């Protein structure tokens, strides 16, 4: 089965915040959120729907599962906002989000209710720059250009904990 993923080409992103605000309009609490790196670059932090999701392994309640399109989804009925916050710590992309509402954890589900009626994720639809792509896993390699990889490395350096000492 081909897995659907979201991919943000940070070299095309201009930091306009459209993805976050469209997500906010649709879901109240945005699941794709802007961050500003220390050198002032604004970019969205998002769920990569990894092949081997660390959040899924960290969650002892089995609240994080894969759905029929391959999206990594969060079942809030099983989660109920456990205090360990292991999923938040585990995610290498900073995509598990803490909120002040409901079960207090939210994440991108590739717009599950929209996918059910044949609509793609809203952020990818509205991105003015075409930086956000909703693609099959196999198409990823072609999107990862040199510029995109360099830009992503810069962002990940900012959001990840320093390794070693």
């Amino acid at each position, binding site marked *: 089965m081909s897995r659907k993923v979201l991919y943000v080409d940070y070299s095309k992103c201009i930091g306009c915040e459209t993805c*976050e605000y469209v997500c906010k309009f649709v879901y109240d609490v945005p699941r794709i959120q802007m961050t500003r790196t220390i050198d002032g670059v604004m970019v969205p932090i998002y769920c990569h729907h990894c092949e081997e999701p660390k959040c899924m392994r960290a969650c002892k309640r089995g609240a994080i599962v894969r759905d029929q399109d391959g999206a990594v989804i969060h079942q809030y009925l099983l989660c109920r906002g456990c205090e360990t916050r292991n999923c938040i710590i585990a995610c290498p992309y900073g995509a598990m989000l803490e909120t002040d509402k409901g079960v207090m954890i939210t994440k991108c589900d590739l717009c599950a209710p929209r996918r059910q009626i044949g609509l793609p994720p809203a952020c990818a639809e509205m991105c003015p720059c075409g930086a956000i792509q909703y693609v099959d896993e196999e198409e990823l390699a072609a999107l990862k250009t040199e510029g995109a990889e360099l830009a992503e490395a810069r962002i990940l350096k900012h959001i990840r904990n320093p390794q070693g000492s």
Partner: protein
Amino acid sequence: MNFNFLCKEPAPPNGRSVGIVGAGPSGLAAAGYLSCLGYQVTVYDKLPKPGGLMRFGIPGHRIPKDRLEQGIRRMERQFGVIFQSHTKICCSAPLFEEEGDHFCREVLGLGEIVKRHDASIICTGAWKSRKLGIPGEDLPGVYSGLEFLFPIRAAHYCVPGAQPADVTGKVVAVIGAGHSAVDVAHSALRLGAATVHHLYRRTAKEAPCGSYEIERLKALGVIWHERVTPVRILGDTQVTGVELVDAKTQESITVPADLVITAIGEIATPPFARELGIENVRKGEVRWLHMTDIENVFVAGDALTGPSKIGKAVYSGLKAARSLANWLDLKAQNRLDAYPYDDLVANDEGRRRS
């Protein structure tokens, strides 16, 4: 950009018509929302093509034109949205004082729009450039960020009067360090400026555009001056330079320049600001979310909040459109009284009280 991202195809026509003034991000987002619901939407804009500053302000290498055009075409062909370009909506006396005014062929009064549609949304954005307020600012050769950037894109639409400033072989001084200042410096280099001086009153670390962008400009050959405050623009009949004060040493510095571009931000210019009571909408003192003093006229985007970002404008446009649709629905059923203002505010995600 799929402005109709909320639906696959339009709902059957609901017999209501909505006028949207301004085809920038907020206007287009509102048009997308309402056309999904079956409204007959007309979008008025003073420029020759819809898109606003996404088309005419931000350089094309940042926002690809095709993506914008696809979204507009979809609204036009599949969702029946009417785009009325070259049309400026004014109060009683036309105010020809912003960038892009020379494009409009038709001037309509707001009253006409109000009468023509069941409801309208004002999404006119922020087009008036902020001024430095220093001597010499009116000299020929001094441009605002928009005055400089706008004709570069506009010239592609074959409109007389939209002539990009000639910077070939000249010395350009850019004042400010927001994203438009970066775009100005970039464009000046691309158009063949000999030297570009970038002047900022604080340090690169504090620059709104971020130090990464500034490092990139420096790598391209831009000369960066930080912690300098412009006090006077020099020249008798034409700009010859900028006089600056170093914030650290209080020493006076002179930077020679043939062109000075002040990219220090814009101010919202909603038509009829006083008559519509825009100030009250800003404070949230309204009967209905995003509604102005005229009951079927709504306001959204930068016209309401002042200059911001595409994302905020889109969100504001979507919310105003939703508020407008709710209002028309309840009004048609005579149930407006059942929804007092406090409930509206409490239900509005953006203003939720904790």
